[in-house]
């Protein structure tokens, strides 16, 4: 693969290993108010290291998506703090958060990731266009090659398979070279084979393109692609695994009663 030989070209300036890409302190998120309020996140303090693929796992309703939305500046916490790099997100207004998402965050959602009226390429370039930035041609070619999308650029989303659509979404996230890419159940709508491909693309992004990825999933197999697994239950961190294998993940999930 050519990506091996050229990967070094795209390496960013060495980042101090200690500064996390994102972290929370005592993060709490309530939906609703009064006694009927739902405590989606309860006093969560966690860090996500640079250059790692972290999987956030847990049963349905455990607060995974909420955590991701708070980390990505899509939602504001009820209490506690959230940092992206060294930017404190708590207290930022809607506009500041939007600009931050545009410049420093990439997203891959479970489905309906793309705007139906734009071509694959237009979808990929949208965040850059919104920011008024020109794409780095070399980087773009590289990403498109790595995601094997070169012959799909002019297609509309409706003309792409589910896996291709997700790859376009990954390409869109990669093109801005964000500080963190957040992926919420990126394989949720894919069959197992396409899902596996998707996961290996995400891992390639981390290993060869030097990105940081936080991925929400409840698929134990997905976790095996991750450097680290954070387990969430009832809005609390329930444990974590480093360089996990599927059995360890399944065991951990089982003990949580998922």
């Amino acid at each position, binding site marked *: 693969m050519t990506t091996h030989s050229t990967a070094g070209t795209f390496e960013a300036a060495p980042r101090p290993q200690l500064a996390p890409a994102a972290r929370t302190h005592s993060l709490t998120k309530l939906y609703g108010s009064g006694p009927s309020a739902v405590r989606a996140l309860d006093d969560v303090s966690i860090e996500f290291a640079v250059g790692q693929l972290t999987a956030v796992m847990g049963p349905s309703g455990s607060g995974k*998506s909420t955590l991701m*939305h708070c980390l*990505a500046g*899509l*939602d504001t916490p009820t209490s506690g703090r959230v940092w992206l790099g060294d930017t404190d997100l708590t207290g930022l207004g*809607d*506009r500041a958060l*939007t*600009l931050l*998402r*545009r*410049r420093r965050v990439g*997203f891959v*959602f*479970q*489905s*309906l*990731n793309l*705007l*139906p*009226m*734009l071509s694959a390429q237009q979808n990929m370039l*949208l*965040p850059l*266009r*919104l*920011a*008024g930035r020109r794409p780095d041609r070399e980087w773009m070619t590289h990403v498109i090659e790595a995601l094997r999308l070169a012959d799909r650029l002019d297609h*509309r989303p*409706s003309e792409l398979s589910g896996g291709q659509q997700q790859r376009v979404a990954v390409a*869109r996230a990669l093109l801005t070279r964000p500080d963190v890419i957040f992926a*919420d159940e990126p394989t949720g709508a894919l069959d197992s084979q396409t899902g596996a491909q998707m996961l290996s693309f995400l891992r390639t992004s981390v290993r060869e393109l030097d990105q940081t990825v936080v991925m929400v999933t409840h698929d134990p197999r997905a976790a095996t692609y991750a450097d680290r697994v954070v387990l969430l239950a009832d809005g609390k961190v329930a444990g974590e695994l480093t360089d996990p294998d599927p059995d360890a993940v399944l065991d951990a999930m089982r003990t949580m009663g998922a």
Partner: protein
Amino acid sequence: MLTLTLASLRQQARRYLAPAIAVVIGVAFVTASMTLTTSLRSSTQAALTGDLSHYAAVVLPSQGAPVPEPAAQTLRDLPGVAGVVAHRVGWTRFTLPSGPRDVQFSTPPSPTSAARLVDGRMPTSGGELALSRSAAAGSGLRVGDTVRVDDLTHSRGSATAPDDGVGSQHRAAATVVGIIDAAADPRYGSTPVAFATDADVAAWTGEEGYREIDVAGQPAASAEHVRSEVAAALGGQAVVRTGDEQAQHLLAQATGGVDLLGILLLAFAAVALFVSALVIGNTFAVLVARRRRETALLRCVGATGAQVRRLVLVESCVVGLVGALTGVALGLGLAAALARLANRSAALGLPQLDLAFDPTAMALPAVAGVAVTVLAAALPVWRAGRVAPLEALRPALPPTGRSRASTVRLVVALLVLVAGTALLVAGPTVFGEQDLMLGLVVAILGGAVSFAGVLLLSRRYVPALARLLGRLASRLAGPPGDLAVEGAVRNPARAAATSAALLVGVTLIAMMLVGGQTASASAAHEIDRHYPVDVMVSGSGASLPADAVARLERLGVAAATARLPQVTAELTAGRGAPTAEGMPLVGLPTDAADVLRDPSVLAATPGTLLVDQQVAQDTRLATGERVIVKVGERHTSLVVHVGGRLPYPYFATEADLRRLAPQAGVAQVWLRFTEGADLPSAMEAVNAAAADVPGLVVSGSAPERAQISEALDVALLVVTALLGISVLIAVVGIGNTLSLSVLERTHESALLRAIGLTRGQLRLTVALEALLLSAVGAIVGCALGIGYGWAGARALLTGQATTLLSVPWGRLGLVVVVALVAGLVASVLPARRAAAVAPAVALAAE
């Protein structure tokens, strides 16, 4: 099924607000215009026909000869007749301290007349007078005053206004005993009238018969029976009609047999309904499209296509009914408010408007509203029934490109367009020369057909134009511009329908503006020819006092003045007896051209005698003929030149006139007002300047001229305002489509917000989408309006002046700006709703 319908209606109430508003406005407009038309018609009818329908028969002069005097008594004695009111009408003169004044005399109003005594009493015996308000105001007479009345018994015989210079030897004294407000009776209107006993009117005016005899029938006798009895008794000496027949006759005379006002208002109502139908149909189409998944799910769990259709159909009926009823109520309120406004401002010159609540004016719009809603919803409803159960599981596909059907559609649309345009252009040329009306009808038909073609084509050019304009938008606004274009053209049918609704209104407004301006520019020459002199001041004597002339010439409102001499001349053509004696001959000075609106009307060359067309006909004079003109002892030979309609019968150059009468003084002063002078105050200034000299007469065509252009302006304003309603409906349509699109794209909006579109940019995107759609509608509408306006003016002016296209760019620009602003306003709520989407919530909801 009913529970489902109710649940669906309740859940979708907010979405149905959009089509309901379109129905409400459309129906309200139709109701208001129908109610106003019926009210206006009955008010006009009352104003024109007065109390005629109270009478079984009306006897009228036959061939201008008054109804013979004995007829009144003959009729009174008929068995079917209960009573008779005979109206004797004639002219005579008051001698007032300020000079003589012509006044119409009449027997007192009938008991059923709308004329009311406002002071004193009616004249009951000889030597007594009652004056109409206008007569009292003009003469300055009050109850108790005495006035001298010329007695014309021996000198006159016909019912025309007395000519100047007819001698009157006898005078009678009369006492004013009452003042009558006679304006409400169409027999008198605002004409100054003096009322006196039959014997006095006969004596003073010399009128030997009746102008009208109203016959009241016995209660048992039918009007037709009385009419034939009366007709038989009079034996062809007079025209006899039933009261209702005469009322209809007067109405037909006044309106030319055409209920123009009603036709116009209904035409606008039809336009409003058509635009509503476009908007309603589009809104339903969007609703059904939005509910595809839901519908498919229903089909999955076992609903048949027919059941689904019934569901949507019932919904459209409910929406139509609620909208229509609300619309009728709103329309009645609107009509009442407008009637009040019209009654308060007399500017329109309409008769007093009493609101008539006509059941048809309420039922018809309501039925039409429901019908239009159901019809407009029919196509989407039919489509809803075709939704396959599997679509619940499939992602929504974007509309596919060119199908066979769309090619057929294109060909049909082009054929319709070409055929319509051909009719529009050829109509006036082929038919208009012989029959203006036929040419006009063919042109209107062609216009309508070609416009249908334009609407059929809209799916092609609306997206294309939106893209073109979108380039500008993306250059100015960046990514929101791009997104707006993509949003606008995503569904060509929807974009076309949205913008077509606006297109209709703007096209019609632009057509009226361009047509109006083109017609009046082309007709300006006609008007100048008909009304060449603004003001003519002439005296009764041979020449005007020098100070009066100087005063008139110093008036600030006069752009130019001219002094004209006048003599009394005798004309002889060939060797025969004099053709005309004692005729006024007016001399045209060299600077006369400065005061004339159209100098060619009164262009006398040395040695010629300019003769009025009518006078030339009466005296059998033809252009090129030589006549001898004699003034006193001097005479000269001039060549006749027959002109058009002239203010005086004969004109010669001042030099020619002075050769005949070297001492002739200034008999007339003519004025031309400065452009844009305020007419009422200008006329007042002239009248004030002329007032000090007794016997000065101020005439001229400035008032008529102003009236014509004012009438045109008012008509144009009213038409524009009425068409504005359709623009309002169209804007509601834009708002509808946008808010539904915004709902449809909630997830997309959230996605955009997540990847970095700011709230402001999202709002801008929605606003730009509205602007693009309205810009396309407004610009195409203006372009079409220019074409149709020109074609319309051309059809109207067939055989007259050549049609000079004159485009009121300023006003058209204003129309475009208004349409754009309206589109922008329509986008405010949808934009706000789009921007309120919380990205996390919307994404999590998937």
